[in-house]
């Protein structure tokens, strides 16, 4: 690992060869916070980013910006625990993922609409994945917005939404189960997309789809 630098409340800990855990050393993000995470994976190297616990977005406007660049023949696994949108939060998430041709990525994101029994806060997330200067996936999610809440077209009765983007040498097969689909994209990648009533079910559905999308996963 060439560079590992962080400042509270977000702390990075190397927990193994090519493995980093995000540790939140303070509550949040809270109104006014802007968290930034930059990941550079050099060609022919491997990195895994996890987190020790879920992130609780607290009341007020806060931002989370993640920028990741993955070099040729490099591999990145990004699978932090879910972001929970507490009532009153207004979280803006921006993820920009730039991949060299032949880069292998496993990028999982999970959003939970409020703590147990709580109304969801607001969230607007945007995800842009670019491979070799061509857009692979552009996806925005709005949560806690009257236009989409309870719409059978958007989340239905689900309380969690999640997706995993996979690239690499993958079969271009579609799969479908209750609340989960494995969707080969137009470009070189596959999106596993899931809706669920709770986080346990969401993770189970995503893992089901991830294993079908990439048969080399354990």
């Amino acid at each position, binding site marked *: 690992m060439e560079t590992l630098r962080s400042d509270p409340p977000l702390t990075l800990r190397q927990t193994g060869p090519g493995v980093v855990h995000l540790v939140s050393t303070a509550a949040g993000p809270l109104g006014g916070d802007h968290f930034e995470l930059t990941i550079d994976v050099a060609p022919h190297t491997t990195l895994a980013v996890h987190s020790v616990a879920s992130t609780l977005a607290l009341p007020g406007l806060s931002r989370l910006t993640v920028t990741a660049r993955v070099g040729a023949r490099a591999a990145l696994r990004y699978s932090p625990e879910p972001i929970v949108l507490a009532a009153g939060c207004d979280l803006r998430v921006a993820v920009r993922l730039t991949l060299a041709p032949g880069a292998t990525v496993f990028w999982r994101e999970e959003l939970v609409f409020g703590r147990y029994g709580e109304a969801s806060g607001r969230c607007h997330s*945007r995800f*842009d994945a670019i491979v070799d200067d*061509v*857009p*692979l*996936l*552009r*996806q*925005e*999610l*709005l949560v806690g*917005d009257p*236009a*989409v809440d*309870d*719409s*059978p*077209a*958007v*989340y*239905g009765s*689900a309380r969690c*939404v999640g*997706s995993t983007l996979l690239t690499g040498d993958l079969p271009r097969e*579609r799969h*479908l189960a209750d*609340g*989960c*689909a494995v*969707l*080969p*994209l*137009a*470009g070189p990648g596959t*999106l596993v*997309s*899931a*809706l669920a009533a709770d986080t346990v079910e969401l993770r189970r559905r995503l893992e089901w789809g991830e294993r079908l999308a990439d048969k080399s996963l354990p």
Partner: protein
Amino acid sequence: MHGDMAMLLLADSRLPAGGHAHSGGAEEAVRVGAITGPEDLARFLRGRLATAGVVTAALAAAACELGADPAQERWRRLDAEADARISSPAQRDASRTQGRLLVRTTRRIWPSEALDSLAAAVPDGAHHPVALGAAAAAAGCEPRQAALAAAYTSVTAPATAAVRLLGLDPVLVHRLLADLAPALNDAAHEACVIQADDWSSLPAHAAPALDLLAEQHLRTEVRLFVS
């Protein structure tokens, strides 16, 4: 010019371009019980407009602007932006099928360089909003009119389908559509505010339930609508 008239023709479900064959996920939503009556339908339409509707409106506006000074390489790039915003293969297929038919029909109505160059650039069928924007340009529309037509058809198709599938009162369903007028105007306005050469920042609102419904629909044996 004649943009208003052309916009009405493009938004009309009687335009012979196959739009009537698509329900925008409504048929599957009815089959699985996610739409059972007017209240569910209202929520379905509102959510569809705020996601797929906003995205198609923005792509149509961008295509209309490009249609004024078309170039094949630029059509392919805009079409790739549409591809990156549709994660469900079933929806990509439905979008290209509709786009192909729309280009075929509108090239005969409004022969133009915009539509000829789009057909040459994306011979297998451009995505529907791109085709709609190109046709709008050919017909003399402004980008805002293209956006309005795109947003409008994103909700009228599922609304009409739901009337047929559930036997709903058509007057009541038209009232639901009328209630969406402010949101529809906002969607078209938003589509044009973001107009720029940089298409990467165009809206990309996803609707995970629509993706699941579209994939499920393909596996359903008895279907009235293509999508």
